[in-house]
């Protein structure tokens, strides 16, 4: 079995189609006929341009405007006078072959653009590589080869670029496996939009697999099996069938309302950690975003994101959600994450250390930059701001003071700012949970973060494998705290939501409705399964279940009771 990064869920079984590696013999050659070499380069350029114009036309025909834009950017690169003269000059002066001249010129720009800290520039680097590759393939003769696909297959490749996938006849493709890439790579995005399984970052897979080998791909686990035995095949055929059935059943729920049998409407919101998850949230019928994490803007880079970069990111989320509420959480990061730009100290106890709002209140510039970007974006949709890791009212008040100052400053500078941006907090530290009634007098909303609330209540580090058996959201103490938070928030007349894993776990849905929760936020893929539970729930039975479960003394008994209850509602739903 090979392991990779799970990039798109689903299971597929089928023969492999290994796409040939784009390897060029990029040796430096000294050439005699400079004019002929420049001609050769221009012929390859023209051929690549003709091909790209075909791709633009194809994308426009299929109304894929985003894809068309990518290829239009490719065309601009091919027409770039500095790129062309750069290559020509090298051929002229150093008498090198066109391939080598192109490679060095492109690398010069890749170096320059890689230093930029905007995501846009890094995408241009990928464009530049893609374009250069195409020209190199025309220099090698013939240009990019389009594989013929006659039967169902799973594509195996070192890397798939937009220009590769645009011409692949995708109707017979069952899944994708690539050697490079992460969850945001082009392959992952294409696979998710086609709802095909994909595993990326599988090292050396093209060397281990031949076209025609039988493959199983598990996009949920990130696993790939090559020529598996009949038992494994049987297991996965069954899993695949179950998935198909579930998918069909859940798909029928997409357009139905999240309403209980007693007629109560429940808000189902999505947790989003990266912008590419937004279309999925909308597709699965999310009523809004209950938690938009902003950490992705800060991680894996050497510099802090600028106000402008953040503004663009937040604006895009708000615009994409078309006026539905979007709760954006301010930076929630601490000593357990590597953030070179902040020079964070390693702490003995990072989960009890300088993280979340504590870090922001200490690094005011980071905080105010983010708040400025948020308020500037606020006019583009229905924004709510949420602070993480609040453990006292003093902290909340200090954070709100920053927010108010930023808002006033922006108005003074003449920026348009939305009239009302609700501010709320994560309830994930027990001290805050216990004081929900006091917080309710000052905050606009609370959202229960069950993952951290569980680890702090039980004093169990959720990353420590030695004590992982002690980490359980079924613990009576955790449920009692949750009950209290919901009740006190409701009494105080503020909105209460839940954005931890518990909210997306169908075993808890009925219990939480029984406790009075009316707003759930979860990963988009959990939305339909929870909606199914909501539609099967009845106020009276949910309340009775809550009463029964809250009286149980151990996590194990609570788990058993909830799993039984879920089975009951499952059968009720089918009948």
């Amino acid at each position: 079995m090979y392991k990779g990064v799970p990039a798109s869920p689903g299971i597929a079984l089928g023969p492999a189609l290994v796409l040939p590696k784009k390897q060029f013999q990029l040796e430096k050659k000294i050439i005699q006929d400079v004019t002929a070499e420049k001609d050769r380069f221009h012929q390859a350029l023209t051929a690549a341009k003709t091909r790209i114009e075909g791709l633009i036309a194809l994308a426009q025909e299929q109304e894929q405007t985003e894809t068309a834009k990518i290829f239009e950017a490719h065309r601009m690169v091919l027409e770039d006078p500095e790129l062309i003269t750069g290559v020509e000059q090298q051929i002229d002066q150093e008498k090198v072959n066109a391939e080598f001249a192109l490679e060095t010129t492109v690398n010069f720009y890749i170096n320059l653009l890689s230093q930029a800290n905007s995501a846009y520039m890094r995408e241009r680097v990928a464009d530049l590589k893609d374009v250069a590759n195409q020209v190199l393939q025309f220099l090698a003769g013939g240009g990019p080869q389009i594989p013929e696909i006659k039967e169902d297959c799973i594509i195996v490749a070192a890397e798939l670029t937009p220009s590769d996938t645009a011409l692949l006849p995708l109707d017979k493709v069952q899944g994708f496996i690539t050697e490079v890439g992460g969850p945001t790579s082009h392959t992952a995005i294409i696979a998710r939009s086609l709802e095909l399984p994909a595993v990326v970052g599988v090292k050396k897979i093209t060397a281990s697999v031949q076209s025609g080998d039988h493959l199983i791909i598990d996009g949920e686990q990130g696993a790939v099996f090559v020529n598996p035995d009949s038992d494994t095949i049987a297991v996965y055929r069954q899993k695949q069938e179950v998935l198909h059935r579930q998918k069909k059943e859940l798909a029928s729920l997409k357009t139905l309302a999240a309403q209980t049998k007693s007629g109560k409407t429940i808000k189902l919101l999505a947790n989003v950690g990266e912008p590419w998850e937004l279309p999925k949230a909308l597709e699965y019928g999310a009523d809004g975003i209950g938690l938009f994490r902003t950490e992705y803007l800060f991680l894996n880079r050497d510099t802090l994101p600028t106000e402008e970069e953040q503004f663009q990111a937040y604006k895009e989320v708000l615009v994409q959600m078309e006026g539905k509420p979007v709760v954006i959480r301010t930076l929630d990061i601490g000593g357990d994450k590597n953030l070179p730009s902040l020079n964070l100290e390693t702490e003995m106890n990072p989960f009890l250390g300088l993280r979340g709002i504590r870090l922001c209140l200490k690094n005011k510039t980071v905080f105010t930059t983010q708040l400025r970007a948020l308020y500037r974006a606020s006019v583009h949709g229905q924004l709510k701001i949420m602070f993480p890791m609040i453990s006292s009212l003093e902290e909340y008040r200090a954070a709100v003071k920053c927010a108010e100052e930023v808002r006033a400053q922006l108005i003074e500078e003449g920026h348009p700012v939305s009239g009302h941006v609700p501010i709320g907090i994560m309830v994930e530290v027990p001290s805050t949970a216990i004081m929900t009634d006091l917080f309710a007098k000052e905050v606009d909303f609370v959202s229960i973060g069950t993952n951290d609330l569980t680890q702090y209540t039980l004093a169990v580090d959720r990353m420590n494998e030695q004590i992982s058996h002690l980490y359980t959201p079924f613990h009576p103490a955790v449920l009692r705290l949750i009950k209290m938070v919901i009740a006190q928030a409701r009494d105080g007349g503020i909105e209460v939501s839940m954005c931890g894993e518990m909210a997306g776990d169908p075993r808890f849905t009925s219990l939480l409705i029984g406790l009075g929760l009316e707003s759930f936020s979860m990963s988009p893929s959990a939305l339909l399964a929870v909606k199914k539970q909501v539609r099967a729930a009845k106020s009276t039975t949910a309340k009775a279940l809550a009463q029964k479960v809250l009286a149980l003394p151990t996590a194990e008994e609570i788990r058993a009771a909830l799993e039984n209850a879920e089975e009951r509602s499952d059968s009720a739903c089918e009948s």
Partner: protein
Amino acid sequence: MRVLVATVKTKTGLHARPAALLVNCVSKFTSTITIKKGEQEGNLKSLLDLLSLGVEQGDQITITVDGKDEDEVIAALNRCATENELW
């Protein structure tokens, strides 16, 4: 030779769409057109050069146009900048 000095107003700076707009605006002219930000300099007809400069909102840029159609270039640049609120 004509020189145009401006402070970039557009929020995204001269990346993405504004950069492509500018390059498309000047590429049909014969004049030599350079753009300078601080000590760095690039060919305004080259998207790669312009992107490499990394011009942000608030940056001061100097565009130098030299050639037979320099007046038309300046006019076209000013029109493009006004229409798209570039500077």
